[in-house]
């Protein structure tokens, strides 16, 4: 049977307590919702000296809706997002993304932090957050850093977080009057997504005012961002698609158990095309 190895369990109630315990522990594992951590423990992929439960830390349980931006604490449960986030378009894209994670039971347990920090190319939030230029808010003792989410990921399953550091949450600017699209393609066998695409765009007076897209998934690795700045003076959907397809063509995509490079590329083209149509077609 899959049974976790033995570990000490430490429940922390404040950030300072967390920093103290994390630095005292040689190999700590953070647990918030647990859908990621408990599975890793059951698979004995990690044998932590201590599991540090951060689910009670108030700073991680907050949602701050300010005038221009939003801060979602890392402990926020995925299913809650649709009820608590504001009505702007950036939030809408996050909600679209979060509501496709697993199933209802997974979303009721899983946290934003878990979905952001694992670094699995098949995770949903990182792609949506990349599209809206969100920032990872990283805490360590006496210090808070705001890091663009694209810089948060080094490679699959590796983020910049060091021992003693913690993802406090994510921060993003609200966007108004944009259209959003979130598309992904699942390979049943293998629990993974070949491709994930998040897009957000603003049309004003029949012209493209702004366009942002991020792609992720197993075929891509850490999320890649595309921006309107690359397309200034271009307002033809066809050309935008071609530009992004060209980029996909330069990507090193492997034949592996998830599919052939040809199939994966076709998946990405299709998802990108559908997402662009959804946010730009008049």
């Amino acid at each position, binding site marked *: 049977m899959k049974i976790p190895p033995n570990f000490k369990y430490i429940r922390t109630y404040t950030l300072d307590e967390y920093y103290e315990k994390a630095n005292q522990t040689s190999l700590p594992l953070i647990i918030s919702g647990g859908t990621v951590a408990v599975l890793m423990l059951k698979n*004995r992929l990690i044998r932590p000296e201590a599991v540090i439960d951060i689910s009670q830390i108030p700073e991680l349980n907050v949602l701050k809706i300010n005038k221009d931006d939003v801060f979602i604490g890392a402990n926020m449960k995925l299913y809650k997002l649709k009820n608590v986030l504001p009505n702007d378009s950036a939030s809408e894209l996050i909600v679209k993304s979060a509501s496709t994670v697993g199933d209802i039971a997974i979303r009721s347990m899983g946290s934003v932090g878990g979905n952001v920090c694992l670094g699995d190319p098949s995770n949903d939030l990182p792609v949506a957050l990349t599209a809206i230029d969100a920032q990872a808010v990283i805490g360590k003792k006496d210090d808070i850093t705001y890091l663009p989410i694209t810089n948060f990921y080094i490679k699959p399953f590796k983020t910049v977080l060091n021992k003693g550091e913690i993802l406090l949450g994510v921060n993003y600017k609200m966007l108004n009057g944009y259209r959003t699209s979130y598309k992904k393609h699942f390979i049943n066998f*293998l*629990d993974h997504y070949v491709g994930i695409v998040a897009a957000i765009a603003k049309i004003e007076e029949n012209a493209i005012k702004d366009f942002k897209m991020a792609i992720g998934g197993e075929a891509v690795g850490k999320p890649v961002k595309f921006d309107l700045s690359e397309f200034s003076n271009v307002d033809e959907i066809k050309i935008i698609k071609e530009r992004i397809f060209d980029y996909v063509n330069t990507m090193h995509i492997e034949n592996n158990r998830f599919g*052939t490079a040809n199939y994966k590329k076709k998946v990405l083209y299709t998802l990108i095309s559908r997402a662009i149509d959804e946010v730009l077609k008049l």
Partner: protein
Amino acid sequence: MSERTEKFFKGKGSFVDDITFPDMLYLEIVRSRKAHAKLLKVKGGLTADSLDLTLISTGESYRKGKNYEVEPVLAKEKVLYYGQPVSAVYDKDKYKAKDLAETVEISYEELKPILTIEDSLSSKPIHDGRKDNIVSSFEVGKKFSPESKIKLSDELFMERVLPNPLETRGIVAFYNSGKLNVWISTQSVYSIKNGLSRILGLNPADINVYQTDTGGAFGSKSAVYPEYVIASYLSIKTKKPVKWIESREEHISSTRPGRGAKAQLKIYGDEKGKIDGIEGKILVDVGAYADDLSSTSPSWIGYQITGPYMIENVFIEGYSVYTNKAPLGPYRGAGRPEAAFFMERMIDLYADHLGLDPVDVRLKNLPEKEFISPTGLKVLPSKAFFEDGIKKINYAELKKKNAGISFGILIPAVYGGESAKIKVENGTVKVWLGGNAHWQRHELFVKRIIKEVLGIPEDKVVLMNGNTSELEKGIGTWGSRSAIVAGYALYKAALALKEKAEKIGLKEPQQVLSSDLSSEYYENMQLDPSMISFLLTAAVAEIEDGIKPVIKEIWAYYDVGEPLSLEAIYGQITGGLLMGVQEVLTEALKCDENGKPIPETLSATGIAYSINAPKYDVQITSFGRSNTLHGAKGVGEAGTIGAPPASARAIENLIKKRVNRLPLNLDLLT
């Protein structure tokens, strides 16, 4: 008596993991992490070397007279598949048992794993003393020299598929006072009893096997696996109850998968659509060890390759071959879906070549009267059935949706017959059947038969779980047999009880209910062509966004003979259809280049979730009664026979590329 599943909603089921005894030991099996290797060192736990041979046969005596290598209880000197049991540890605490399992040291000298049928045929034998990897070979039918105008060949392949019942395997063995009592999730308490008796050298009279509530099986819970032997052996040694519950990971690596069959076929016919003959090779990958079932699988597939058709010339060479994979077992259908897939795909190839409607070609090749295939298969004429079915499923409309069609037969595994026992006790009629229900809802036909013969209301009747101490002899539930054989035995037992009752003046059902009468009946049965049912299946596919193939609709027009229970039948059909569909799309047991199974979770095996379910349109009919008292035919495996070829064809119609390998190669969509 309440509806059977009511107790599960109250949490009052009795599945094998629900059973606890004081001082119970939890067994953990330590398994090979290599697909092919010499065992240099195994340190820790119970190993092949530390088995007390006075208590257990390691396979040699069981092997006597067999032409194949039987799986040993624990690997000795070599491991031949990833997941093969190497050592066994136990503890009173199940968490500690897992920790203990990690302390077992195994070191290997790796050998090259043989992982495909092709490699198997061209590689050194994986079993010492054999000249090659061919377990057995057969010829079915008769060689012929065709002079047909049309000759078409193709190679077809169905990847291995895991049964994956929702409840994994499990056993509790308790040896005390000279008796071995076994509680087990199973399809046949008799299979288990006979196997344990033979391997442990125990007198059958000293073994009692009790079927716990069983959460599905689909073929995986009939064999006597090493873990069952080890648990029983350890209980004999320690005199304590020993529990072993399979983890899903273990099910994926070590429970017997099914399918794994390849066919290289040639179809011969004229230019008008009349098939002259079919010939070729059928090869089955039986894994690292064989048994009677897996070694004869190619001949069983070859035997029924002609399906419902009248094909005068058939010659099939069958080979079963060893590979470094888990031993093959039956998986819902067990040879029938393979035969149907192979034949139906060849007929579509032939019809396409001639530019004829695939349904017309099929109808044209059905017999006008009883037909005996060169393989010995006897089938009744079925043209009226299929013509009726084509209308009933509105083929004309389905054609516009590019539907794929399949014709098929279901041959029930009636051989061996079945037994039944009825005991009236405290105002309740208790029934035991030799075949142990494990998802089929047999209680529904049991209640009906008792009502029909004895007039006793359904809520006073309960189907008990399998139990060798209540019903001494029996066979098992598999191969779509139970309605026919168990239903028949129950009918006879009920008639015998009625006779007994009348002899002592009890004529009214109420009087019988207040009695303490009992009766038992066993009869062997031979396959009669009237028992073979006919299956018409149609599937409508869609390639969503050009990248995701799905089956949107599945239509079934199935012959069930006299339906004993409509509710049971409907569920059996839809369940089978979904399994058949999923086997085409995503469900398969693949392994990596080292022979390690790729799926690490249940979802990764590609099984169907609710969102994968197509729209079902199921129509059942009685195309003649079977020649048993009750007239029923088998139905359990029908969906898995009909759905794969229909689904493969439906997708083929959309992508305009030949689909001859399952699961679907996604690269065909590019």
